[in-house]
């Protein structure tokens, strides 16, 4: 009987620090599998955000830089401009990318920088303890919206994929989720497509991955999956939002 399961070479042996029920680990694995399949590990540079994935570099086996909060797209721009032959991706959460780093991601996307962004959206600040994010749902309780997100006061959650897709510059923009196997298969395809567009020097590529945060949502892992499916997905619809051409 042959080997049916193995750990991607791009993934390290380290045990992650992520909470039970969090999908970061799954998304890391998808990225690692894609990097293995495209055989680009030895020329890839990842950029870790500030947030739960700040230590992402511990879980991969290729070059990594660690950014300041929200600035990963600017760092990726710096790398890609001086070393277009490197494969570069940023891995960012929704506080990092959609709040403090909104300027950097929009301009990088608009310049058509040839790197890939994996945007993990779990509708909350995780690392700092469950504060409200720009992506927090209406009436969702967080540690800084204890009575629920009041959209009359702080506006509606930002649909980043659609926002970036509205730019006129060609890009690959997709939204996926990693909460159930049937979605995970599609998410991997999108991540692979995103890296392939970069490999071809085609365009900026962006995959939003709707994720869970059982810890800060105050739910069990299973409750979190159901809440994401029933509450987040209707607001954050899945699929390719924009393709180049």
């Amino acid at each position, binding site marked *: 009987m042959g080997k049916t399961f193995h750990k991607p070479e791009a993934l390290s042996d380290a045990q992650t620090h992520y909470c039970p029920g969090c999908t970061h680990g799954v998304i890391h694995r998808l990225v690692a599998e894609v990097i293995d399949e495209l055989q680009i*590990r*030895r*020329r*890839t*540079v990842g*950029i*870790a955000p500030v947030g739960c994935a*700040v*230590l992402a*570099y511990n879980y*991969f*086996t*290729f*070059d*990594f*830089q*660690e*950014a*300041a909060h929200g*600035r990963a797209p*600017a*760092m*990726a*721009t*710096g*790398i890609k*401009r*001086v*070393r277009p*032959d*490197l494969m570069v991706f940023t891995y960012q959460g929704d506080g990092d990318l959609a709040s403090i780093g909104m*300027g*950097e991601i929009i*301009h990088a996307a608009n310049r058509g920088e040839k790197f890939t962004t994996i945007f993990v959206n779990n509708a909350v600040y995780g690392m700092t303890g469950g504060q409200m994010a720009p992506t927090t749902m209406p009436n969702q309780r967080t540690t800084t919206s204890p009575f629920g997100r009041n959209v009359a006061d702080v506006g509606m959650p930002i649909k980043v994929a659609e926002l970036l897709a509205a730019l006129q510059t060609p890009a690959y923009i997709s939204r996926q989720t990693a909460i159930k196997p049937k979605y995970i298969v599609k998410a991997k395809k999108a991540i692979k497509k995103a890296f392939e567009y970069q490999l071809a020097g085609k365009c900026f590529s962006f995959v939003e991955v709707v994720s869970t945060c059982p810890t800060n949502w105050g739910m069990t892992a299973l409750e979190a999956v159901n809440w994401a499916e029933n509450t987040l997905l209707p607001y954050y619809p899945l699929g390719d939002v924009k393709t180049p051409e």
Partner: protein
Amino acid sequence: MRKVLMKGNEAIGEAAIRAGCLNYFAYPITPQSEVAEYLSKRMPEVNGVFLQGESEVAVGYMIFGAAACGARVMTTSSSPGISLMSEAISYIAGAECPAVFVNIMRGGPGLGGILPSQADYLQATKGGGHGDYRLLVMAPASVQEAVEMVMQAFPLAEKYRNPIMILGDGLIGQMMEPVVFPDDLKTEPGNKNDWATNGMDFRGSDKRNLVRSLYLDPEVLNAQNLKLKAKYEQMKREEIRYESYKTDTDYQVLIVSYGTMSRVCKTAIDNLLEEGIRVALIRPQTLFPFPEAAIRQAASAKSCRVVMSIEMSMGQMLEDVDRSVQGRLPVEWYGKCGGDVPTPEEVADSVKSFLQKYSKE
């Protein structure tokens, strides 16, 4: 080596290219936008990288990203822009990457003005961004010196794996003076394979590199800070530069002044000598590390009555001069900080009034 007449800002841009730096990211701000304008034309000619970022915040991190993968890289800005880049500068220093920042200073605080100033002395020499880091800060007094310092900055940044700042006032950027680009200052970047995230295939290694400034373990972070401190101590031993002017006379007053201000002081010193008043100058060319010992020694001259810090800032360098003199003599300040550069006559008047004050005592 042909002598050419060039504006300081353009010469700074050309100097980067001549030094072998073909990567430049910037955001426009007066009084240094000519660097970006110049390099937007020049970089394509040498197959270099020119990119106008969306903000100084973003540019700071473009520099970080590029530096972290081992490229020679520079940006230029002016005071408010440097404030915005200071976050990235802290990260770059923390992550130990070489990069060159040029600050063509304008008046502050806040939006301030656009005329010459030296009001960012403390920001450049003591921090600006957060955390325990220092920049090696060089302060040119002419377009030629700006060229040489820019060209020397790259190997220094690589030697220390630390950001270097060239601190010039608005006049250094705006003046035209004859310059030559010394061929012997062109250098090749050293081997960065042991730390740069330049790709495992590129450096032919199976070991991955990691560029970061995050150290959650207090002992490890402390050790990292001690390592940084050792570099700054090495700079103090090896990189102090200054110029002495008329220090071989029986001077009554010692001036410490840098940049454009020091040139005004030199003219004032020449004029005062015609009146029989003997004044000497120490011109720091590096502001960090600061020429403390040279100033202390010069302040020990028997004939000297008072030391003056003359600066286009409100006594920022005075603190370092005072620290250097260590109480041997009174230390006084003269300067202006609105963009109106003091004239030689104003400097001379100030020197005379302090000399009179301390001659009586």
